[in-house]
């Protein structure tokens, strides 16, 4: 199987053993009373990386961000930025800036003054502040809104002011807490690309916290999937999707069909899995699982073909009954109930505008897939 | 400002690390001051006075300035302190229990305050309910109209009722003119006048908490109840009223506690025939100049109110938790 790289082909410092880590979480634990928000977590982020922390709410991802910003101190462990231990450094002396989920725009200040706030704290000379503010306003295309107060702006404009304010100081790292959470879907998609362009043009390191996997997949160079204060997997979006490291990650990102079973017969790079009820799955991706090991076979719905007869020459084909059909416009999702009761999702792109659907509810149908279409998960 | 902070601000030789450490020390000191200043103020002007009241309530009346003896203190060392302890007496308290006047005054005050509280609730609830159901546009104005009298002087509002309630006052003129009564009603200088005065003066204190709990209530709850077959009156008692209970409790405590110790209303509207403890304390102090006895009166009054005051505080704390 080919290695799954980053979107930016020339940018992959995590594969370079000599690359110097920029941000390091070193065995960090954070407890609030009895509750452990972050549990002995280690993580490395590189310079100029667009890094996403993805997880459900309450998984500890925001706590990680707040520890980096300095609003919380780790209970144990170290956080290093560019080799410097951040312990004890208050937020107002850290070379990182944050864009808040609520934007936290100062309601009593104009857009300009909001953006200038951080620069004034540094004692920057007035003409320079004015120039930098102008530059920032231009960057986020809000030149004619300089004199407005936050409540006179729309949600999207507020978001851009917050962004301009947090990058105005040219921080080493920009932290973004659910930066697009408050925007509606259409605006969110546009803004995703704007954020990526901005990160490229400013050459900053971005650490973004999000619960929206699509957002993380679109924007990030790498994604860390966090659950219960621990890192489940750190990988590029393509790796996370196509080569999830565990059942949790496979289920968390995207849709997946999961067959639990045992390795019946394994050899290098290939195996057959006994999934019970007479179902045997042949796969070319068995990893290092030994014969007899309990594993899960995970396969994405779009990698499953559905047909009314058994396709000739198919290595893996299982019969069942069409149980549900969902027409989504760009694709159609079929739910097929296998004879053992398990339901398999299969999706088909609607490439042609008008197609005669040969399958209907309660029809017998075959689901089939290639031996390299799924992954074997041991964890 | 602390020395540390001043040093941090002025010293140019301090290294960056020193500066940040000192500045942080300064900030911690400022944080401490935020707590300490109001804390010490309240300890000195609110808590210590109660200790003094308690101490003087154990002293003897004397014709002197100040008119009591002894003054308990540590002036003569610990031995002197214990010697003084022997001179303290609970005579004032014995006196309070033996004189029917005081016992009556306490009992009457509590009863008058309780009745007035119930009356205020009965008058205030429909007003608060009507306000909470008013069109959203109108609500801020109505709210301001309820608060406005609260900003005008308590004394003036009580005074206004004298002209209305007295035998030749406006109310009697109206009743006589319309032929409702043939003889002027005697209302001023009776307990009725006190009830009217308390209900009138404390009405905003009842309406505001009631309104805020009723206004928060989701109207669809009532619709759901009706949809499930509950008639309107029953929906009120089963849904609206229980949900407004925090407001009812807060309002009742806000009226009851100060009403027990009320002075201006019984003095101006109740006349000499009515008996309430606030007035008794005032007379004991200003007319009889008996500081020890009035202190004892205050101590007992405080003991009487300590449970309602603690309930009030608990309710406040709980409301605050909910707001968070």
């Amino acid at each position: 199987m080919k290695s799954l790289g980053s979107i930016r082909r020339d940018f992959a410092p995590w594969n370079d053993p000599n690359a110097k880590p920029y941000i390091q979480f070193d065995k960090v634990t954070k407890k609030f009373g009895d509750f452990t928000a972050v549990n002995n977590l280690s993580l490395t982020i590189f310079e100029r990386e667009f890094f996403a922390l993805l997880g459900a709410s309450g998984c500890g991802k925001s706590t990680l961000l707040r520890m980096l910003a300095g609003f919380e101190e780790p209970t144990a462990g170290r956080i290093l930025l560019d080799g410097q231990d951040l312990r004890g450094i208050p937020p107002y002396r850290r070379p990182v800036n944050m864009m808040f989920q609520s934007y936290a725009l100062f309601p009593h200040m104009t857009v300009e003054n909001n953006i200038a706030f951080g620069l004034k704290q540094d004692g920057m000379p007035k003409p320079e502040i004015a120039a930098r503010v102008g530059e920032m306003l231009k960057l986020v295309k809000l030149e004619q809104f300089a004199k407005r107060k936050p409540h006179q702006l729309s949600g999207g404009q507020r978001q851009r002011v917050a962004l301009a304010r947090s990058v105005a100081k040219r921080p080493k790292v920009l932290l973004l807490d659910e930066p697009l959470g408050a925007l509606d879907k259409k605006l969110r998609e546009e803004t995703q690309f704007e954020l990526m362009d901005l990160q490229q043009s400013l050459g900053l390191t971005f650490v973004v916290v999000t619960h929206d996997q699509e957002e993380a997949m679109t924007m990030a160079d790498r994604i860390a999937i966090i659950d219960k204060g621990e890192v489940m997997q750190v990988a590029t979006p393509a790796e996370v999707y196509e080569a999830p490291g565990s059942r949790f990650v496979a289920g968390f990102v995207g849709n997946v069909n999961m067959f639990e079973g045992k390795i019946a017969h394994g050899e290098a790079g290939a195996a057959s899995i006994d999934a019970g009820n007479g179902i045997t799955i042949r796969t070319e991706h068995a990893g290092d699982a030994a014969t007899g090991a309990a594993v899960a076979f995970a396969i994405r719905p779009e990698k499953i073909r559905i047909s009314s007869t058994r396709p000739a020459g198919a290595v893996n084909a299982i019969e069942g009954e069409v149980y549900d059909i969902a027409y989504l416009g760009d694709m159609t999702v079929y739910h097929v109930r296998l004879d053992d009761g398990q339901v398999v999702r299969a999706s088909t792109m609607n490439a042609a505008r008008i197609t005669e659907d040969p399958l209907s509810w309660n029809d017998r149908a075959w689901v089939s897939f290639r031996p390299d279409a799924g992954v074997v998960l041991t964890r | 400002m602390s020395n540390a902070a001043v040093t941090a601000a002025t010293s140019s030789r301090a290294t960056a690390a020193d500066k940040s450490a000192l500045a942080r020390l300064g900030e911690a000191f400022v944080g401490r001051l935020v707590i300490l200043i109001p804390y010490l103020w309240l300890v000195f002007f609110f808590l210590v006075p109660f200790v003094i009241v308690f101490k003087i309530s154990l002293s003897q009346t004397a014709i002197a300035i100040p008119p009591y003896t002894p003054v308990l203190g540590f002036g003569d060392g610990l031995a002197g302190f214990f010697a003084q302890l022997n001179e303290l007496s609970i005579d004032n308290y014995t006196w309070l229990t033996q004189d029917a006047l005081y016992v009556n005054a306490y009992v009457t005050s509590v009863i008058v305050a309780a009745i007035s509280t119930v009356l205020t609730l009965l008058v205030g609830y429909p007003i608060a309910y009507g306000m909470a159901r008013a069109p959203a546009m109108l609500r801020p104005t109505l709210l301001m109209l309820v608060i406005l009298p609260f900003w005008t002087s308590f004394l003036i509002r009580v005074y206004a009722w004298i002209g209305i309630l007295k035998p030749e006052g406006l109310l009697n003129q109206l009743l006589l003119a319309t032929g409702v009564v043939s003889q002027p009603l005697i209302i001023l200088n009776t307990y009725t006048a006190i009830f009217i005065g308390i209900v009138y003066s404390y009405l905003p204190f009842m309406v505001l908490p009631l309104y805020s709990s009723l206004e928060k209530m989701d109207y669809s709850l009532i619709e759901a109840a009706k949809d499930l077959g509950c008639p309107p009156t029953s929906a009120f008692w089963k849904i609206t009223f229980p949900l407004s209970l925090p407001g009812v409790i807060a309002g009742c405590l806000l009226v009851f506690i100060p009403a027990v110790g009320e002075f201006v209303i019984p003095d101006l509207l109740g006349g000499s025939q009515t008996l309430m403890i606030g007035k008794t304390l005032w007379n004991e102090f200003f007319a009889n100049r008996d500081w020890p006895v009035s202190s004892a009166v205050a101590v007992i009054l405080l003991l009487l109110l300590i449970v309602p005051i603690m309930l009030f505080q608990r309710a406040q704390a709980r409301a605050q938790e909910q707001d968070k």
Partner: protein
Amino acid sequence: MNPTWSRFNITSIVLGFAFLYLPIVLLVVFSFNESKLVTVWGGFSTKWYVSLFHNQGLMDATWVTARVAVISATVATLLGTLAALTLTRYTRFKGRTLFSGMVFAPLVMPEVITGLSLLLLFVAVGLDRGFVTVTLAHITLTMCFVAVVVQSRLITFDRSLEEAAMDLGAPPVKTFFQITLPVIMPAIVSGWMLAFTLSLDDLVIASFTSGPGATTLPMKIYSQVRLGVTPEINAACTILIAVVAVGVIIASLANKRREVQRQRDEQAAQRG
């Protein structure tokens, strides 16, 4: 929007407000009465207002009251704001329960007790009763009201504003003065106004803690009221009511205008 603003609701509001305002209206009306008999209408006149301004005792008391109110409201606003900050920001320190008790108790404490205890304190420390003692007493009482007003604003204050300021390089004290204080300023102003009017209106605590030469207006009015209802007192009361009412109405109208403007701005912003 309001399916049940019934006739019953409207009636109870109308009757309630009539009850609240009628006595005050009558008091004001009879301050313009020609007759010395307060309750018998004898024609329109402003003579009681004229005689008011020639009453030196009343004018002196007014001056004392105004000074006490301004000074005590200002100090109380400072202390009350600190107390509110303590209550909302420092959730764990020794004696917090006692502290919140001392803030909330004066709100409901019968005034006779507060007045008596403060007087005994002043006697114990040998402070002569007068202007200073009344002011100290009023600060103590009104700071608790300020604390409650400011505290309720601080509870809903978005802490991420402060975090944002610190994140942008402002140390805590600077953050407080540049961000927190301006944002909660409206609450602090209404706290001051409340403290001012409470001080202006107080009779009981002032009677206990004041001494010769520091008679406040309510004390003066009270001593005359005890002698009977006179049109001159009605006139004095009317002026007091007018001052407070005008102040409150102006403040709330300004508030409302700001609010309306804000809503209009927000709608405009949403449209584009």
